[in-house]
């Protein structure tokens, strides 16, 4: 309990002081995306890592939130602070409706169904040109503003988005450490035993699917108001897979793991730019090596690695 609180406080202090290191440079902009990706990875982790239910369509919920916010503000002149919760509620309702039939499926079938869902949403973004602008995109989305301050620079967006990300981290940690979190893990380990214990597995899965979709939608809204421009290609199948990779590489069932996974997969391409044409090969190779040698993800693999290295050194000194 107490340790968890201290861990979170340290994390929050690091997050809020990090911009001092960036000197307003390019890295600040990248870390804005790390924040958004962390929210998305946590959303998917609640579903996959805790409840054990896969989704290959989460980029769709992210896109729905982004486009709903974008269209309501740019086309209909709503205030972003109103558009964001309204979009999230609409996405929640949609996820609830989709969730009941889709979450009856298990394993590969659920993967296929959510994949289909993601693809349909993507097609809708492309085809409803009157609203979304289709493949050429939607522009003119306003920045968010608070008390006359517009979030129009990297530093302001950094603090806006990381405030939301830290909230997501905190609420998810709370949830994971509660009767609901336990029920989710119980469903993951043995659905039949969880039901015998009185857990309404079916309803719980739908609820967590909807919550997960809501977090994606909120992240989408933030993305829309930060970028001020949206194109369907950001919300396709590729991005759903990237989210899945973040969750798995970071560590299933760990909230901080989702941050690590999101940070790595967002930063890596930036650092690999120097390798020009080989970047994608190195990227893929690294992911493979990590899944083989850190099957529990970064959040469990890094401490194990540190332990192995330090004990190895000590062993060497003695010899």
């Amino acid at each position, binding site marked *: 309990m107490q340790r968890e609180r201290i861990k979170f406080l340290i994390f929050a202090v690091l997050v809020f002081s990090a911009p001092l290191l960036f000197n307003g440079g390019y890295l600040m902009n990248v870390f804005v995306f790390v924040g958004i990706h962390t929210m998305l990875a946590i959303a998917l982790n609640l579903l996959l890592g805790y409840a054990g239910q896969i989704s290959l369509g989460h980029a769709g919920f992210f896109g729905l939130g982004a486009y709903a916010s974008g269209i309501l503000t740019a086309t209909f002149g709503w205030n972003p602070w109103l558009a964001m919760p309204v979009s999230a509620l609409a996405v929640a309702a949609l996820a609830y409706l989709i969730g009941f039939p889709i979450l009856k499926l298990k394993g590969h079938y659920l993967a296929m169904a959510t994949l289909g869902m993601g693809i349909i949403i993507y097609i809708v973004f492309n085809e409803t040109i009157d609203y979304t602008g289709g493949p050429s995109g939607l522009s003119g989305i306003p920045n968010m503003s608070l008390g006359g301050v517009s979030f129009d620079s990297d530093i302001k967006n950094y603090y806006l988005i990381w405030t939301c990300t830290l909230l997501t981290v905190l609420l998810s940690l709370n*949830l994971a450490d*509660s*009767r609901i979190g*336990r029920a989710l893990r119980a469903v993951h*380990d*043995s659905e039949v*035993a969880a039901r015998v*214990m009185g857990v309404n597995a079916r309803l719980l899965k739908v609820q967590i699917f909807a919550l997960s979709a809501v977090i994606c939608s909120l992240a989408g809204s933030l993305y829309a108001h930060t970028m001020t421009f949206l194109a369907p290609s950001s919300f396709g199948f590729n991005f759903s897979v990237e989210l899945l990779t973040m969750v798995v590489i970071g560590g299933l*069932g760990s909230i901080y793991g989702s941050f690590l996974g999101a940070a790595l997969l967002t930063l890596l391409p930036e650092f690999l730019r120097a390798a020009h044409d080989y970047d994608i090969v190195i990227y893929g190779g690294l992911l493979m090596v990590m899944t083989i040698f850190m099957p529990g993800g970064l959040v469990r693999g890094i401490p194990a690695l540190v332990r192995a290295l330090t004990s190895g050194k000590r062993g060497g000194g003695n010899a």
Partner: protein
Amino acid sequence: MLEVKGITQIFGGVTALEDVSFSIAKGHITGVIGPNGAGKTTLFNIVTGIYSQTCGTVSLDGRDISGLPPEKLASLGMVRTFQNIELFGQMTVRENVMVGLHSKSSCGLISCAFKAPWATSEERRIREEAMKWIDFVGITDLADATASNLPFGKGRLLEIARALALEPGIILMDEPAAGLNSQETLGLADLIRRIRDMGITVVLVEHDMELVMDICDRIVVLNLGKKLAEGTPRQIQENPEVIAAYLGGDE
């Protein structure tokens, strides 16, 4: 009181159960026995809502519970254990039992996420109550162990503790002595008696004849999907049909 009436179950062409009826008195330990393939597991799965039967009704305290899902049965005070213990392997012993208290707590997604004051106090109550059941089955020293690391015998005790946390009116155990050594089986017999003495009705499917004859107040014998006999352990041991079909058979 649990009452089973005219249960028939057909899987494809196989009739696993045919017109089985019996009733189980409150506060007793009742054993369901029979040779392999007699239909015991099938009957258990029907009563506990895992399968739904082809025909017949199951009622609990006069209320028709046929076809209700397990989570609904839990709220009506019926719980079960599994032959191949179904633990929540990644969770600790204590957390496993805390899941058993799920239906005795009520905080939802939102109040849990915001750690509302009532959620925190409920959590504290769940934690304390779980410990009570861990003590009851005698695995106090393992409270913080991960469930999947437990030896089989301890896992069995954990499964029982988790089921008791629901404070059920009736507990059904599917071969609780399977995989236990003789020492552990003795402990189990004692535990099952203590459970009955709390006023909980116990039903068990069991292969260990010695255990069944020792602890059961009544016994129902199934053979080839039909009820063959019903009575006290003494009556069953003396029943010529049972001896012919079962006790004198391959067991």
